[in-house]
């Protein structure tokens, strides 16, 4: 059947594209976080390809062997209730596969949600990334500078992006450095990443937020610590401080070009609290139709909360030291 072959061809074609030729953005990571995700995705694709193969072979077998045109006119198919052995087999094997992938998921999710390996002995650089309309504001509390629509990071330090939004939910994504995360108006979220090498990467909002969404891109540039320090120095020396008035003007604008300032908006317009800090008793995971699940949620949040609290005190300490 030509459809089946064309499908197979497509599947193999995809694998070929994924593994060779010109690497797709997601498979071209430039930092440990994105590398972990790329490996996870390739592993899952291989696992899934095996499953697809089993189904396709069975399917092809059934269609070629049991078609009416091959059977004699008086062939009467038998009555078959089912088979416990077979049914247990195709329940247990998928459970094993799912269990395997579940372990991979839990492990990799916790990996990308913490300071990247190999960088954990260094103090992370905290950058606040806030979206408004169709632009991004980046504040460096440690350096006391702010940029719009571009972000520079040093290569040999772990970075923590603290995300929030001055409007609709957006999603902060630099695919070659890390997976994405939402930026919301009422709570702070965190992306951990690090850049292994110097380069310029596409960053964008991937969550639809209205008319100017398609153009909501920014450039993320990684540079050596020396270059980064020089750039900070230049900004501090040459750019004006960000006044409240100017910031309001920026917020109201739809699209703006790049700009830099020698102070941050965090001084007069602080970021919202981190996820979990806000309503201690409440469950911030929305709907609680199943009360037994709620309990789990709360337990989990406490863990999460402690973690976030620690981050906070660390960050506060940094801010105060400057």
């Amino acid at each position: 059947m030509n459809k089946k072959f064309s499908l197979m061809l497509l599947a193999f074609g995809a694998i070929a594209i994924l593994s060779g030729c010109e690497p797709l953005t997601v498979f071209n990571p430039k930092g440990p976080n994105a590398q972990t995700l790329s490996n996870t995705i390739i592993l899952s694709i291989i696992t899934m390809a095996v499953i697809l193969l089993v189904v396709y072979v069975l399917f092809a077998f059934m269609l070629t062997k049991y078609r009416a045109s091959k059977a004699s006119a008086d062939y009467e198919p038998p009555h078959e209730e089912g088979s416990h052995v077979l049914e247990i087999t195709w329940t247990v094997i998928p459970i094993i596969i799912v269990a395997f992938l579940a372990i991979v998921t839990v492990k990799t999710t916790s990996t990308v949600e913490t300071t990247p390996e190999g960088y954990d002995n260094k103090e992370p650089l905290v950058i606040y990334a806030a979206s408004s309309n169709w632009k991004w504001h980046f504040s460096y509390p440690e350096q006391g500078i702010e940029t719009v629509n571009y972000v520079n990071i040093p290569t040999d330090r772990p970075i923590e992006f603290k995300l929030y939004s001055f409007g609709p939910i957006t999603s902060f994504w630099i695919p070659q450095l890390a997976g994405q995360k939402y930026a919301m108006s009422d709570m702070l979220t965190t992306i951990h990443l690090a850049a292994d090498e110097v380069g310029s990467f596409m960053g964008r909002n991937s969550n639809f937020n209205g008319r100017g969404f398609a153009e909501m891109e920014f450039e993320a540039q990684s540079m050596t610590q020396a270059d980064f320090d020089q750039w900070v120095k230049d900004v501090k020396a040459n750019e004006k401080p960000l006044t409240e008035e100017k910031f309001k003007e920026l917020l109201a604008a739809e699209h703006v070009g790049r700009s830099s300032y020698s102070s941050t908006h965090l001084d007069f317009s602080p970021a919202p609290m981190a996820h979990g800090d806000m309503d201690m008793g409440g469950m911030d995971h929305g709907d609680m139709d199943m009360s037994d699940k709620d309990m789990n949620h709360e337990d989990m949040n406490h863990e999460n909360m402690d973690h976030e609290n620690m981050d906070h005190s660390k960050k506060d300490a940094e801010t105060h030291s400057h």
Partner: protein
Amino acid sequence: MKIDSSLPLEYSTEENRLKIFGFWVFLGAEIMLFATLFAVYFVLHNRTGSGPNGAEIFELTPVLLETFLLLASSFTIGLGVHAMRLGNKKAMMTFFIITLILGLGFLVIEIDEFVTYVHEGATITTSAFLSSLMTLLGTHGAHVTFGLFWGVAILIQVAKRGLNPQTANKAFIFSLYWHFLDVVWIFIFSFVYLKGLIS
């Protein structure tokens, strides 16, 4: 229409049995509706913004009165259905009328409660907490209001047509609805008012 006289009047025809079963399924949907409203309330009940919280606006006396009226009405409608099974049309109607009057009393107090909140500056637009509170209470109140009209319609039909499989079926289904509203209120009383007053 086949009438099975071994069963109570409200169950006596096939159509009646379908309607009662169907109404139970519908109540399943109603449970989900209120469960969702409760979930919304629990998520938002600490998010008072610059407005008051529950402890600041809840008053125990009217709430206790509302609870008493509604519980009593649930009891009287039970008596009404009992009277209906005994074939006593007059007693049945009397109990249903008492039920509706108690329901009306509940509604009057609830409206008064809302008016008081608004006078205290606690409106549905003040904060997420008040939005969720008033939507939950309002949905329940709207159900009671609808029930009052429905109950009156059934009473008129019983008065005009007497107790027959159709009217008995309607009255019985109405009683299920009324009991359900009572159960919802018990949850509101415990998890909204009492919890709010304690914290």
